[in-house]
């Protein structure tokens, strides 16, 4: 029987004062006792509305029930059947606007902590003996371009269906944003490595340091390399700049550059690792999405004394995960809401000294449905800063589309692909994830990879 408790079972977390200065994971994770205790709260609704909120429709009450009765293996099987990256999604999904937002408990009480439970089950799974390696059984070879969540999930599903799959990755290590963007303190790289290990045991081959469209063309993949179908999961990695004065000053960088230097290149380990990162005492981060919060929290961990989020809209328009926002506040990140950057100021020899900003107020809703920020005349401030980090969005990388004929691209650089199947304008080429949607979420990318894998399978099965 469900047990009525108004609050979620709290996630054990490391002390803010301790964790704000290292890169170890912030959340310790549920123990089996926490998990069983929380699982009891689920009502096992007749009409589980939580499932509608999950982009990959995990049978949420079923896996939670399995946890409640202590059947972890069963819970893991149910989770993986619907979501091939539960250990990652349990950690990084914006649950408050997806599964947990819909949970029927949520109308009066706190919703069931679906994400925490998902994470618990996936972490339990990692302590078990690995599944026996399997060999491909199908003759058609499939190429996957990009090793972010879309590519990883697509490769995994195809391998489970018996196809030999090769994943091509431009960088020297696989994982996409999971590797270079989301920091260790939210998503330990060991978890990503474990998931990649599972794919390898399914026979998926990873080839890093190859850029499709540069090293090898799309035509080569179908031609001399003999692939039957291709999935494009190249993400939306191209950082945008504001175009304000002073953006070329020393100390200004994109969040992608900052996070890549720290995560992919291990800049926190300089000079034992070779890639340096410039972090001064005061770091101003422009934007208020997950990327911005990650950059601000990373700046503190890299030794900055002050990290400030500068956002032209208000707190309620912020798009970051709620849990990260709370953690950031606890760790001492400061927030300047309704503040819009005008120019980066610097010394005569070109180093950043501050960020000049315009104070804003909220007006009528704009096209995105959010209140439009309007300038308050005459109210300008200068925030002292040694670094300015821009986290104002990214667009799809043009490396592939510039060199491949037959792919259709929207004005914003997104690939045109069928929402259900991922099929593009080019025969045999499927696409999904941020490359199609623009910057979105891990679970949406994973869902698109999964649907495309099944569409590829169907198109090949139909050929006989």
């Amino acid at each position, binding site marked *: 029987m469900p047990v009525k408790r108004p609050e979620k079972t709290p996630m054990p977390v490391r002390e803010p004062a301790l964790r704000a200065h290292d890169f170890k994971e912030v959340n310790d994770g549920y123990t089996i006792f926490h998990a069983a205790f929380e699982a009891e709260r689920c009502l096992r609704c007749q009409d589980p509305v939580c499932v509608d909120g999950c982009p990959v429709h995990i049978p949420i009450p079923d896996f939670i029930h399995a946890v409640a009765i202590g059947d972890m293996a069963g819970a893991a099987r149910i989770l993986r059947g619907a979501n091939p990256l539960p250990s990652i999604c349990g950690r990084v999904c914006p649950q408050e606007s997806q599964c947990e937002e819909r949970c029927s408990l949520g109308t009066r009480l706190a919703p069931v902590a679906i994400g925490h439970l998902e994470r618990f089950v996936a972490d339990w799974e990692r302590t078990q003996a690995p599944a026996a390696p399997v060999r491909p059984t199908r003759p058609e070879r499939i190429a996957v371009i990009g090793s972010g969540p879309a590519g990883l999930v697509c490769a995994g599903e195809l391998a489970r269906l018996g196809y030999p799959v090769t994943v091509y990755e431009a960088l020297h290590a696989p994982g996409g944003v999971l590797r270079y963007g989301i920091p260790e303190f939210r998503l330990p790289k060991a978890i990503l490595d474990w998931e990649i290990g599972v794919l390898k045991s399914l026979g998926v081959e990873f080839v890093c340091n190859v850029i499709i469209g540069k*090293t090898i063309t799309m035509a080569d993949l179908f031609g001399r390399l003999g692939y039957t179908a291709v999935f494009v999961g190249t993400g939306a990695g191209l950082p945008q700049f504001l175009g304000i004065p002073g953006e070329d000053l020393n100390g200004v960088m994109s969040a992608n550059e900052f996070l890549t230097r720290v995560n992919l290149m291990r800049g926190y380990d300089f000079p034992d690792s070779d890639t340096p990162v*410039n972090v001064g005492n005061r770091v101003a981060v422009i934007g208020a999405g997950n990327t911005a919060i990650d950059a601000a929290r990373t700046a503190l961990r890299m030794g900055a004394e002050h990290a400030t989020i500068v956002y032209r809209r208000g707190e309620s328009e912020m798009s970051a995960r709620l849990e990260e926002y709370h953690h950031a506040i606890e760790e001492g990140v400061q927030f300047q809401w309704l503040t819009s950057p005008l120019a980066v100021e610097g010394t005569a020899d070109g180093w950043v000294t501050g960020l000049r900003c315009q104070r804003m107020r909220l007006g009528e809703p704009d096209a995105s449905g959010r209140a439009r920020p309007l300038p308050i005349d005459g109210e300008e401030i200068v925030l002292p800063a040694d670094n300015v980090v821009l986290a104002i969005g990214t667009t799809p990388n043009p490396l592939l589309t510039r060199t491949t004929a037959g792919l259709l691209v929207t004005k914003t650089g997104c690939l045109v692909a069928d929402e259900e199947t991922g099929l593009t304008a080019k025969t045999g080429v499927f696409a999904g994830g941020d490359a199609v949607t623009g910057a979105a979420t891990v679970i949406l990318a994973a869902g698109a990879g999964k649907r495309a894998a099944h569409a590829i399978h169907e198109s090949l099965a139909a050929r006989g």
Partner: protein
Amino acid sequence: MAKIIEARRLTPVTKLFRIDAPLIAEAAKAGQFVMLRVREGGERIPVTIADYDRAAGAITIVVQEVGATTKRVCALEAGDEILDIVGPLGVPVDIAPGGHVVGVGGGFGSAALLCLMKELAARGDTTTAIVGARNKDLLILTDELRGICTNLEICTDDGSAGFKGFVTQRLAQLIEGDGPGRPDTVIAIGPMVMLRAIADATRAPKVRTLVSLDPLMVDGTGMCGGCRVSVGGETRFACVDGPVFDGHQVDFASGMRRSKQYVRQEKEAIERLACATTAAAVR
């Protein structure tokens, strides 16, 4: 991993490597570069493809020791492996055929002229290479370039070989009609100070000038924006939009300033490497 087939010292601070990299050799064109990394935890550094040999599946690079990573690269020998190498990156050089192209190389830039001059000569362009160094011992690949180009112009600061003076001075003479004569296009590869001087020299006489920029890079794939340069008032990413740009449109002052962002850390890295090397030698 890519195996080094041949490693040859050209000067005390530059070394040529032939690397087994069939995919890159197959796709490479003049003006493009690779990113490479030589140890776990190592930096990714951009290096120009000096030459490619599609039949042998090999590329040639020339690396000049300026800091910790380039020193690590130059410590490698034939038979060693390069941990990571990716490319070809950047956009190939685009020059209208049929004219007189003058390639100016400073430092490792002379090496980068190899495949460019070969490509241009093969389609019938008149080619002149101007290469410069402080003295004749620091000149690199002059024999190879002489074999490829219609004309080779050597400049040394001290006059120990060829023209006594800077490459820019010799270039100015050519533009006046001296030697092989006025170029239709100038392309310059080398340190940013030299590129700026070249662009200044060709601006008034209105000679089309391409420069291959070498800003700091992290990924080389368009993902970080660290390599951004201002060209004609617009922000461009050198790794995906370049590295070759119209020299008369580049904001060199901003570019040179941005190259110095990590000077302090670069010094720290080289001092540490020196300590480690001394310690190893003592042991």
